[in-house]
């Protein structure tokens, strides 16, 4: 197991170098001049030249890429070209908020999705199953940002239960977490349901029932454990995707997260920010994937035996 984790961590190195190369090349070939964006529509050619010089934009490709990789190894991504703050400071002012939002949304999705999925699988074709499926389909189909908007209007403006925007207190967290978590909850619910249905019909469940196990043990110990593998995959992928930021939801609720910030940095051609931010997202995504793979081992001993 330890060897497996170490091997996976080492495998991240070529992945990250690949990511760095791709971000860098994309930034390099992108048309437009960052010094122009910094100085605006009307700036003298001399000023543009000075800023280009300062940002070392005229250095050859390999020198620029080399210094980027070299600095990245020491976790020094330089300063934002716009604000002049260290990239590290800019990103870590926002990344915890994004982590928190993503984490809470996935937990909300699991808390809603898994029990409902189990319930609708064990009570297949009941009225509950139908309602749960229909609501699930609806929740999965509604875009996050639209649901967020509607919630702000209803619970923020009309009922005045929650603040309409901002981040900081638990009251601020409720609406964005629900808005983002709803569709994931629906997907997890449907995933749990179908995967539970498959397990419930398998031979070992029949055996468990035949030997007189209590139904709750059959469902939660025998069936659920097997059914959780695909659910874990979906939850992990959702969490990973949310680490890149839920741009529209962040915008509506004015959450100081990484997603919107990165979009702005890209449109401003703030290359140090974009490179640092994308690399951080890539690292966290890889780590989350690794974590999911490790979780499999705890859920399913058969998988554990394969991790060598």
């Amino acid at each position, binding site marked *: 197991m330890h060897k497996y984790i170490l091997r996976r961590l080492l495998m991240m190195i070529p992945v990250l170098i690949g990511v760095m190369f791709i971000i860098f090349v994309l930034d390099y070939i*992108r*048309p*437009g*001049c*960052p010094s*122009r*964006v*910094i*100085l*605006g*529509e*009307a*700036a*003298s*050619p001399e*000023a*543009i030249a*000075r*800023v280009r010089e300062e940002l070392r934009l005229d250095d050859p490709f390999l020198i620029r890429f080399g210094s980027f990789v070299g600095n990245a190894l020491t976790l020094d991504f330089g*300063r934002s070209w*716009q*604000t*002049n*703050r*260290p990239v590290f*400071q*800019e990103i870590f*002012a*926002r990344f915890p908020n994004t982590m928190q939002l993503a984490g809470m949304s996935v937990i909300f999705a699991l808390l809603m999705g898994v029990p409902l999925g189990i319930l609708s699988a064990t009570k297949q074709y009941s009225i509950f199953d*139908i*309602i749960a499926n*229909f609501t699930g389909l*609806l929740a999965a189909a509604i875009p996050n940002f639209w649901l967020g*908007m*509607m*919630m*702000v*209007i*209803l619970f*923020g*403006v*009309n009922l*005045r239960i929650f*603040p*309409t*925007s*901002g*981040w900081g207190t638990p009251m601020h967290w409720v609406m964005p977490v629900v808005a983002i978590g709803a569709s994931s909850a629906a997907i997890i619910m449907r995933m749990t349901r179908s995967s539970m249905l498959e397990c419930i019909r398998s031979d070992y469940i029949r055996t468990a029932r035949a030997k007189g196990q209590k139904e709750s043990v059959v469902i939660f110990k025998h069936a659920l454990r097997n059914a959780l593998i695909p659910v874990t995959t979906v939850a992990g992928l959702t969490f990973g995707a949310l680490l890149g930021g839920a741009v529209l939801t962040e*915008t*509506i*609720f*004015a959450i*100081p*997260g990484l997603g*919107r*910030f990165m979009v702005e940095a890209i*449109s401003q*051609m703030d290359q140090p920010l974009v490179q640092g931010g994308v690399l951080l997202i890539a690292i966290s995504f890889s780590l989350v994937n690794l974590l999911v793979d490790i979780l499999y081992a705890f859920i399913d001993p058969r998988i554990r035996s394969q991790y060598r």
Partner: protein
Amino acid sequence: MLKRFLAVLAILVMATFVLAACTGGNGNDEQAGTAPGDPPATTPADPPGQTGDISAAPTGPAGDTTRTDFTILVAALPVSMDPIQSNDNASSMVNNMLYSTLIYQSSVDLSVHPSLAESWEFVDAQTLNMVLRRDVVFHNGDPMTAHDIKFSIERGAVSDQVEIILGMIDSVTVHNDYEFTIHLDFPFAPILSHLAHPAAGILPMNHLQGILDSMGEEDGLAHFADNPVGAGPFAFNSIVLGDAVTLVRNNNYWGHLPVIETLIYRLVPDPSSRLMAVETGEAQFAQAVAPADIAVAEASPNVTMMRRPNMTIHYIGFNNNRAPFDDYRVRQAIHYALDTRGIVQNVFMGAGAPAQGPLSSQVWGFHPTPSFDLGSQGANFERAQELLTEAGFPDGFDAAIWWNIPNTQRSTIAEMVQFQLGQIGINVSIHSYEWPQILDETERADGEHEMFIMAWGTVTGDPDYGLFPLFHSSNHGGAGNRTFFSNDEIDRLLDAGRLETDPAARLPIYAEAMEVIRDQSPWVFLWEGEELHAVSNDMNGLILNPAGHHNFATVWFE
């Protein structure tokens, strides 16, 4: 049975959402009658004699006010709180409260008045003598002297970021602690309005020098920008990156003390979210309401809309280097063929107004030069056709119009232009580029741009700022004149406007320049923007500044 149940359920769910959507816009319609453009009725105009005083203000008795904290929801936070490290509107808005400037520009009519500079005198259009107030102290307690002025202004003069505002300054000579002379690189009469811009804010020399000495240049500048010290009505308190900047009242302010004690600029990027937060009382000022939300805001019982035309002009530029746009008759023909009123009405949904010339009506010395006489039709196809025939294009030609992603308003403008010019045989193709790319492409003399949609804000309020960079032939390309327009008459007039220090004598110069520009048509003038802000009903004392540099120090609540 099941089908019916599902149908009922579906209707119920949809009804919930529809209800939620409707109740947001339903409110008290009586408020909708507030005349657009009017500040709230209780807003005092600049009191006589105080017009020029930056502190001209809280007229409300401090004892009666209930609220001393003021939350402003902004679309962007400052890029830098060092006045010379950035030249964006969000920074200017905050720096305007943190720093004092030598000159104060009245929000009412953009006339210039004494501020830190008690008095001044032009030796010639290139040399300006000034006398400093003696009672000014910075937020850190340092008294302000002419040495601070020299330090602040000279570092601004060599800053690439604010080159367009302070780059014409050569040096400052200090005569004694309170008297100094500003020397310019060339004669430049509009200098006073430039010295009133937040980029010319004065900061404490010894304080910043100490930081730079102890932390080094790079770290020191970054540190100062996040811990700014000025002499404005509010002092810096805290910043949460990506979230908010908090200022507190400067109790040692040299002018009238603001009533507001805490001023919070909070970032809420979505315009509808900003408006809703004012409706619920979470904030008192929502910057830049979306045109589509104006009716909602006017119908809300807790909210008042504050509106005023601003300094921004949207335009369609022609590349004068490229045939057939090198012929002024072709440019005029397009001017005649476009129904700009229709475009503005459709695209901006009642916000702002059709542009009346290359400058906003709010700019000092504005002289209306609307598009040619187009009658009630909004466009004059016959005249357009005549001009095209004269220019040798009776059957029209192919042309391209460029806009920048993701500005969807400009995309709609491009589509309407395509349709309207199609009527006189000009086949327009639409091209979209990212902002950095469109900047890059339009600055080359051999650039392939033909028509492009852009905007310009005359942030100093002086016609020179709105005309010289954009139309003088010395500024071809990236320096601002992206149409590569060359006209000796315009060059002569714009040069003369810089030489003439007597305001009355400058007026006819610019009026003539605007008429020549209209006749030469390097642009089609499209839209004059509007400041559209939603404020809570109990807010008083604010006069909107058309450059967006609102003076929140005068605000009080009742």
